[in-house]
């Protein structure tokens, strides 16, 4: 069998499956499917199958056809029973009736179930065991979600506690950078990157970090030119009156 013929036979099976599915999932008449004709198609194609996926498709088509036969059986039983009424007539009546009349119709044919729902000692015991063995939400979905850590902030206090910085040393550094900025800028706008560029990458990051503190305290000002996207810096001595705005400035990779 050529590739073209193979594709065509697969298409034929898929068409049978799709037809059966669409009939099953709608209220369409199941007798619209000509079972004999479809079986003949499958029978004709069967000897030509070579691959497993073709055989699986054939099995699926047969299953779908069997479901249609089941529906046809139910359809005949219903139609033969006294419950059969012309669907169009019912639809018309349903459209014409008011909400109150419809509610009245269902209530007149309703026989509510009488039941008592109560907690038994066994039920209580099961509930207790369930609650006792129930893991916290974070544990329950660990395998699916993995362990996630939320991004957080690290402040000077914490760095001091972690012994990365010492309080005295940090304040000295703060003062040194402030003095340097006052000296270099002398109240004029200077290029931010030129100022922090200190040769070594670690020193550059440290200077940017300390500058962030100076800006927050109002001892330095930052201005970003929206057109050239250049960042400017100058020393300042303004007292902050409003909530400071956070600005992210990349310092570049090593």
């Amino acid at each position, binding site marked *: 069998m050529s590739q073209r013929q193979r594709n065509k036979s697969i298409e034929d099976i898929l068409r049978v499956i799709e037809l059966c599915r669409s009939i099953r999932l709608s209220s369409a008449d199941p007798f619209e499917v000509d079972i004999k004709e479809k079986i003949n198609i499958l029978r004709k194609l069967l000897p030509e199958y070579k691959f497993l996926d073709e055989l699986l498709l054939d099995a699926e088509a047969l299953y779908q056809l069997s479901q249609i036969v089941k529906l046809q059986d139910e359809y005949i039983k219903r139609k033969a029973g006294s419950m059969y009424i012309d669907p169009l007539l019912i639809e018309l009546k349903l459209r014409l009736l008011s909400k109150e009349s*419809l509610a009245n119709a269902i209530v007149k044919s309703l026989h509510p179930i009488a039941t008592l729902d109560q907690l038994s000692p066994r039920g209580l015991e099961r509930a207790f065991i369930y609650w006792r063995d129930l893991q916290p939400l974070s544990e329950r979905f660990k395998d699916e979600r993995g362990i996630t850590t939320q991004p957080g902030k690290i402040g000077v206090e914490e760095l001091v506690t972690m012994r990365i910085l010492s309080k005295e040393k940090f304040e000295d550094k703060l003062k040194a950078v402030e003095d340097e900025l006052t000296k270099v800028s002398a109240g004029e706008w200077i290029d931010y990157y030129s100022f922090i560029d200190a040769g070594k990458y670690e020193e550059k990051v440290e200077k940017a970090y300390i500058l962030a503190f100076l800006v927050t305290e109002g001892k330095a000002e930052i201005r970003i030119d929206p057109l050239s996207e250049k960042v400017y810096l100058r020393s300042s001595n303004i007292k902050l009156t409003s909530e400071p705005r956070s600005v992210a400035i990349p310092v570049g990779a090593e």
Partner: protein
Amino acid sequence: MEADRAYLERKLKRAFQLLILQRGRNPGVKGWELRRYIGKDFRKILEILSKELSSFGLEVYEVKGPDNSEDSSRFILRFREPPTLYEAEMAGMRIDELAVLAVTIAYINAKQGRASRKEMERFLREKFPKWRVEYSLDRFVKKGYLEQNEELLQIGWRTRAEIDERTLLTLVLSGVSEKVPSSK
């Protein structure tokens, strides 16, 4: 004679307790359970119990299972007579919801027992707002009045247990009485 009477009373009491207390997710007791707890003659016991309960307005009702066998049948206790609209409203059923249920069951029956959910929603939206239709259908599926298989809606076990579908269709066809009786 006295021993027989005591035996019967014991069985009746046991059957009533089994039927009234909901043990699983759904009310009622399966045929095989009743045979196990009451004995082979459980149908006779249920018949007598049903007669005894008629003075309280209750009856024992059999809901046939998928294979129509006695074992798969579900036996329930239900009201012998339908409630009034007022009583149904007092039990927490809204007129809107009852109307949606009436349309849904009658429509599915007219369509030979199955209708696609989309088709059903489209039909209901001629009379009811979208949110009411979606909310009510979901609720009926959850309560067992309807069964949803993929996109297909079918009659659920509770409808078969509580609703006399033949009466409903007759009432719908006869146009019911436009005047809703006041039963307060």
